[in-house]
Structures are given as C-alpha cells and as structure tokens.
C-alpha cells in the first residue's frame, strides 16, 4: 500500500500532498522536510529507490517537479515508478503539456485525477482512457451547472 505521495519543486516547495494513512500534521511536516532534503541532494544517475525508516521511497523527476511516493516493503518499486508516470501522462493529457503552474493553479483537478487513479493507497484504475472519461464526466457536470447559473442570472430560468 502506498503511504503517501508528495510533489515538490526543485526549490523544495511542496506542490501537492496526498496521505493514504492518517498522520498528525506535525509528522506530515517532518516527513516532508526530511524527504525533500534527502531527495534534492541526490544526483541524477542515482537509483530511484531508497530505504527510509520502514518504508521504501520511490521518486522521479519530471522537468522541475519531483514526484515522490512512499510504499511498503511488500510493494513493487518499478510499478510505483510507472504509477507516477501514468499520473504524469494523465496530467499531461488533461492540461496539454502540463507544467508546474498547472498543478499549482488547478490543484483540485490534480487531486481529482489522483483519486481516480489511486484510492486508499492502491491502484484503482490504470486505464488512461477510463480515468479521463471519469474526469470528463465531472467537467461536463461543472459546465452544465455553469450554464444553468448563467441562465438563472439573466433570468431565463
């Protein structure tokens, strides 16, 4: 089971955090600080996995963003790298060549997409098509409500 996923920038700024097991805020902050510091000092050709406390850390850098997951001893490191990749692909497809700012300003979409891909720390849906379909269905509802709102405003309904 994945314990948490963190997205942070090369400058060490946390951009997204997802915790799959309950932790006190203080612990979350400490873990984040520790891991960001550890990972930023690692060199590019180094192994993407490291042992950390009782967990395994799997991380990968995409452009200016680091994606970092903590998994348990029994989880598969290589596939965790591919969960990260699939997530990046989803973001990329949705935003059209995603960049850090997309995630900062559309964090809610980034979360919604992650919730479709993973749930409770386990993979839920690996099909890119199906995840994007689910997100599109949400967007459709959002548009309908926007249109309805606009119509209501000008007094048409």
């Amino acid at each position, binding site marked *: *089971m994945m*314990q948490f996923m963190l997205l942070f920038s090369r400058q060490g*700024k*946390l*951009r*997204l*955090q997802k915790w799959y*097991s*309950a932790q*006190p*805020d203080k612990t979350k902050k400490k873990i984040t600080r520790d891991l960001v510091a550890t990972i930023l000092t690692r*060199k590019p*050709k*180094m*192994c*993407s*996995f*490291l*042992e950390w406390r*009782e*967990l395994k850390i799997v991380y990968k850098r995409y452009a200016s963003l680091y994606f970092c997951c903590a998994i*348990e*001893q*029994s989880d*598969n*490191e*290589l*596939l965790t*790298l*591919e969960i990260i*990749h*699939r997530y990046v692909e989803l973001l990329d497809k949705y935003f059209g060549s995603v960049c850090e700012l997309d995630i*900062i*300003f559309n*964090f*809610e979409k980034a*979360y*919604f997409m992650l*919730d479709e891909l993973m*749930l*409770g*720390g*386990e*993979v*839920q*849906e*690996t*099909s*890119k*098509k*199906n995840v994007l379909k*689910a997100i599109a*269905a*949400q967007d459709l*509802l*959002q548009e309908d*409500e926007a249109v309805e*709102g606009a119509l209501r405003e000008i007094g048409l309904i």
Partner: protein
Amino acid sequence: MPAVRGDGKSKEAEIKRINKELANIRSKFKGDKTLDGYQKKKYVCKLLFIFLLGHDIDFGHMEAVNLLSSNKYTEKQIGYLFISVLVNTNSDLIRLIIQSIKNDLASRNPIHVNLALQCIANIGSKEMAETFGTEIPKLLVSGDTMDVVKQSAALCLLRLLRTCPEVIPSGEWTSRIIHLLNDQHLGVVTAAASLIEALVKRNTDEYKGCVSLAVSRLSRIVTASYTDLQDYTYYFVPAPWLSVKLLRLLQNYPPPEDAGVRGRLTECLETILNKAQEPPKSKKVQHSNAKNAVLFEAISLIIHADSDATLLVRGCNQLGQFLSHRETNLRYLALESLCLLATSEFSHDSVKKHQETVINALKTERDVSVRQRAVDLLYAMCDKSNAEEIVQEMLNYLETADYSIREEMVLKVAILAEKYATDYTWYVDVILNLIRIAGDYVSDEVWFRVIQIVINRDDVQGYAAKTVFEALQAPACHENMVKVGSYVLGEFGNLIAGDQRSSPAVQFQLLHSKYHLCSANTRALLLTTYVKFVNLFPEIKHLIQDVFKADNNLRSADAELQQRASEYLQLSIVASTDVLATVLEEMPPFPERESSILAILKKKKPGRVAEPGTAGNDSATPKERKSPALNSVGNHSTHNTSNQSTDLLGLTSPSGSSASPNPAPLVDMLADVFSSASPPSVNNGFGSSFQPIDNLKKFACKNNGVLFENDLLQIGVKSEFRQNLGRIALYFGNKTSFALQGFSSSVGTPGDLATKLILQVKPVDVNVDAGAQIQQLVNVECVDEFLEYPTLTILFLYNGVQQRLSLKLPLTINKFFEPTEMNSEAFFTRWKNLSGSNQEAQKIFQATQPIDASHIRTKLIGTGMKLLDGIDPNPENYVSAGIIHTRTQQIGCLLRLEPNRQAQMYRLTIRSSKDSVAKLICDLLCDQF
C-alpha cells in the same frame, strides 16, 4: 480561479498578502450576510490553495461540510476535497460528514456515489467503518452496481478493513468477493485483487478458493497479446498492475496442491521468464519497467515457493544479467532479489557465480544505496568456501565505506568471520582489523564476542595475546583496541611473557601508556587487568601497587575507579598468593550461545537479515522480509527472539547492554571476574528465617527487578514490550547450597484470560545447581484488554521435600502502552472529547509515601505512558498520554495526577477512548504513589 498568487516578490510579502486574504475570508464566514454556495465554494477553495502553499489553515471546516449537502456537484466536490485534505479522523465534524456521505451513497448518480466512496477511503475513520462496514460489501457485489463504483467500493472497503478489521465480510460474502477475480472489467479485477489480498492475510483458509481463480486470470494475461487487453496494456505489457497483484496474492499460499493449477502456474512463471529474454518491444523505459516489475514479482513468488530448482536457477541467471545492466534501478533490485535467492538451497550456488560482479559493484557503484545492497548480497552469499575472500573484500571496502553503512558492515564482517572461521587465528585477525579500520563503529557486542571466543578456545589464546600486544604498539590505537588488549593480556599475558620483548613489565608499561588517554570505563577495565597481573606476574606487583596508590586513582573523582583502586590495592597487599590465585583465576569458559552480534544486526534490519549460508533451512526469511512494514507483527517477533542474547557476557543484569548507556556491562564483567571464585549467593545464611518478599505490585511501574525472594529461591524479572508484544525473562536463582531438583515453572491464564493473552512459555531445566541461576522466557501477545494477572506456579524438590510457590506473573495491561507525545492544545481537546461517563475513572487516595516530584515522575514514566511537561496549567499536576496496543485495537488513554501536599493525598483521573479501560488503569495505578 484562486486569486492569491504564490510567486510573490518575497516571503514576507507573500505572508502579508495571505494573512490579509485569510482575514478577509474569516470575516466573510463570520459576517451576517449568508453566503451562497458559489461564494462558500470560492472561499473554501482559496483556503485549500493557501494550505497547499504551505500555510496552516485552522478554520473553514464547517463551511466545507456545508458544501457537502449542496445540490451542485462542483460545490459538493470542493467540499469533499477540502475534507479529504484537511480533516483528521478524529474531527468533531465526522458525524456531520458521515450524514452527508450517507445521502450521497444513496444517490442514483454514480458520480455522487463515487465522491462519497472516495471520501470514506480518504478519511477511513473508525466511525466510518462502523457506519458503512455493512453497506459497502453489498455495493461491491451487487449486480446493479456500475463498474466504476465497484472499483471504488473495493478499495474503500480495503481502507475500512485496515482501520477496523472487525468489518471483514465473511461467510456469505467470501465467495462472491473471490469471484470478482473473474469480472469482465479489468479495472474491477485490479481493485478487487488488492482487497482480496488484504482479506487473505487475515483469513488465509477461508479465502483459499482465490488461488485457482488468480492462477487462471494470470494465465490469461500472460498469454494475451498486447492488443487483447486494449487500454490495460501498458507500453506493450499486458495488465502489469493486475499481474503483479495476482503474483503477490499467490505469495500468501504454498504452491497449489491441485496438479492442474500448479502446472498452469508454472507455465505462467516460465512464460514470464521467457519474455524477459525476448527483445524489447519498445525502447522506452516504461516498457522495461513494467515488464521487469512483473518479472521481479514472479521471481519473488518462485523464491516464496522455494521448491522448483529449475525456476530458481533461471530466475537467478536472469537477475545475474541485470547486475551489469546500465539502469541503476535494475542493478539495485537485482542485488536485492539475489539476496533472497542466496538463502535457498537450490539457488545458493548459482548466486555465488556472480561473486566477482558483486564485489565489483562494491568498488564501482556510485550510489551508496546500491553499494549497500551489494554488501547485503555478499553477506547473504557467504559460506565456508568463499568466506575468507568475501570478508577480505568487505574489510578493504570498509576503509573507504560511507559512514552511514559502516556500523552495519562491521557487524556483518564480525558475524561472517565468526561463523566461518575454521582457523580462529584468522578470526582474531579479522576482528582486530575491524577495530583498526573502523574502531568507532565497533560496538561493545563485537569486542565482547571476540573475548568470549578467545576465552573459550585455548588454541587461540597465545596467538591472541601476541597479536593484541603487537596491535597495541601502534602509536595511535583505538580505545576499543585498548579494551580488547587489556582483557586478553589480563587473562593470557603469561603466554607471551617468556619473550623478553613482551615481558610482564613491558606488557604493563604498554597498557599503562594508554591509560591517560582512555575513558573511565576503559580505565576501570585496565585496573582489573592490572590486578590480574598481580597474580600472573608477582614480580611487577610493586609497579602495579604504585599505580593503584596514585592520587588520580585512589582519590579519583570517579567513584568506580576509586573503589577499584582501593579494593585492588588492599587485595594485593593483604591476600596470600593462594587467595589471589583463586580470586583472580582465569575466566571460566562462557556458555555457548547464538552470536549476540547477529541479534543486533537483526534488530537493526528487521526482517532483512538472513543468517548467512543457511540455505534451505531458513525459508521463512523471504516471507518475513516482505511482510508489510506498518503492521509488522512478524518483524517484532524477530526482534524479540533475538533480544534474548544481547546480554553478551552471559549475565543477567537488568539492563541490556545496548539499551542503556550506563556502564553496566563493565560492572558485570567485573562480577564475573570474581564469580569464578565465589558463587553469587546473595544470602548464604540459609536456615535463617528470611522474610519472603513479593514485589508484584511494584511491577505496575517497572519492567525489571526482583519479583519474589525467600530462603530458597530468588526470582528476578526482566521484560520488554513493543506494541502488543512482549517478552518476559524469569530468572530463578537457587540460594541454597543444594541442587533444586524436579524444577518446573508454569504460567496459567485462568478463566477468559486465555482469550485475551497469548503466552508462549519456554521450558526450563529440571535441575538448578547450588548457587546457580536459570532463565525462562515467556513470549506474550496481548489480544485484548485484560484485568487479571496470569498465574505463575513453581514446583521443585528441596532436600527431598516438595516445594510449591503460587505467584502471579507481573503482566498488566499498561505494559502495552506506547508513549504518545502531544502538545497542550491536543491534550485538552482530547481530554474534553473523552468526557463520557464510562470513559473516565477517578480515585482519590492517601499517599503511601511523602509526596516527592522525582518519585512521582519515575512512577509515571514507569507506567509506560508519556509524561508530558508544561501541559497542565498547574505546575504541581502531572499529565501523561499513551496508546494501548492490543492485537485487535488501539486504545488511547490520558492521565492526570493531582497531588495535594497538605493532605498528603492524590487525585488520579484516567480517561480512555474505550469504556472500562479507564477504570482498569485507574485501579492499577492508584496504589502506586
């Protein structure tokens, strides 16, 4: 949408801007004008944004909860998001949230149902488990449920299961859940496979039907072409996630009994291994990662079964190829998996073929974590045939090794050298080299061990004396070298004293030249060596007496040194040669035992460390390694079994040598020096009427000490606990000058205690020699809270008369406390939350001894809870917090103790998340103060 920008000119400007915005939002929320849904959503969203920028958010929760009941999807969705990111499991709002979730779960719109399910999975609190535990399994198996909802329901149930195992669906649900593995929709199967694995872990037998289904599903996937599975093919690899899940699921079972199923599984594994040899279908790293992920998992399953030699060797060869792959990740994983293969008798030899490559990795890998894996593998592949070479390579590497892995390497080298030594001179050389190269990383256990071995083997004693003597000649030598040197020369210096170059005076001068550079511990040890010299070499007695008499010893500020100097001095003056020879006799051999160093290593790396070279007879290891980290019961039991021997010099002092920084081992060693002459009888005056002592109650606040004592027997207890597990060592000391015969000691769990505690009691020797002490171990698992003490019954014959002692084992529920740190605010919030009438227990009682702060503190710390300072507004009061771990649950407890000095009374209040526990703890502790 959010209006606050994170890229402000400076940190201060950003904070200022954000504080302004927070104030604005706060006033909007507090204002008289009711906000419409859109505005609420806008501000809640802004708060989230501010939180993600790294600022604390402490309001807006209520508004977010309001959004949940909005009939607009977008508002509802933002509400749920805020809650999943910012609400804790123990929030006051949980009830309101649960109500909204109920409504959404009942919705006809699957998108709403999924929002609700995702929220449950994100928060996963106990209340949610209780509320939805029966609802969600229905949703999961119902024919009407849409696939997307089934997927969420499966993982949602998994999350609740982790929070609250009681919600496990069983009986009628089992087969329906297992059959989800046959579902048409691969997304559903993937999600269900995760759930099923968790269920299997809890009830392997009930779910064993899943094996054949998993095998046939796996078979269909691995034989599928990459176009068959459409979007579930990932970079030309068919359904890698599901494949890995299924392979992992199968690792919970032995190889299938049914020949057909077994054959099919073997075919699958062969196909996966074959595919690894095929040319890649894509150059992308995603392709190779996904393909190899499946391969590694298949190899794990092969190792788990540990029965098919062909597959094991094939897996081993495949991993061998990866050792020289250009991807660091693959090299890392290959080294790790080979470690496991090295423990199988079938593949141990194949792993050894890669020795050169692994040694090379140690020298050339640029990433320390990969080098660490190489060390692990060398350790695992070591056996008699290659031990000298591997140990030498590890020693070479140690000279330049990263500081982070030195300590562990030292332990590994020490273990290998001991285990595979055929010639103990080699062993001594290796350990002395270790001290020379990495003295700072050589723990006490390592040098204790070399001394044990030298003392037990007379063929190596002369060599050891000669070698340490030479090593001490170095101008700068490590303090650990001085310790070993001093001990060895003190015992066996006479063996080299014939040589003029190492005459008694030279030996003494050499040791004493280090004296001033050493810590007090080492000095104490040196003093003991000196007094042993008085016996070995009477000719230098005057030199030694001068040292004892020196002001810096006889008047040392260190009490231990002063005492040794004065006592040894007197001994050397007063005692006759005969007495000296008896008192300062050579140490008797130590009892043979498991290497305590191995125990330390196991403790450092739970589940990671196999005993080297135990191919075949240690098949538990691979499974152990893979046990989930966060509820690692298996790992804890490893700790516990190994702790037994941390006490290296064979002594039963109440403090494990690694656990406390005090110089206990040293004192013990000294005790041993003398014990060779006189048995450690505490009270020789048998026949005198010794008042029996029963200290049971005192153990509520301590783990070690004397439990019981009468004329015949002293019973000591040393116990340690971790989460819901514990180990109690009972020491029975025979105080008489006769052997106790027919000795037996049994532990009983009267009534329903047997269902609450699982005790595993090791057998004891039937004879306890005069003056001897024997040990008995009791392993404990706490299943549920309990009230009574287990009984302890001891039977033996003394002078032909049957003796019977009925005592209680000092085991109370508070032993399973895990101390919990919290701040004042958190403490009082929880305190208030636990205000139900059953959740609180209070007692007012008379102090049994004068009220004294340090006494109270010691007792409170001894309860196992965390004593929290600066929490209670009244500095006279004490508060503590802790969590009781049982197998089935965790129970939070808070304590408040208010002394009243005038009246010499205390008021003790306990609050606990579980009814009845508060009273239990209160009753237990109220007569401790």
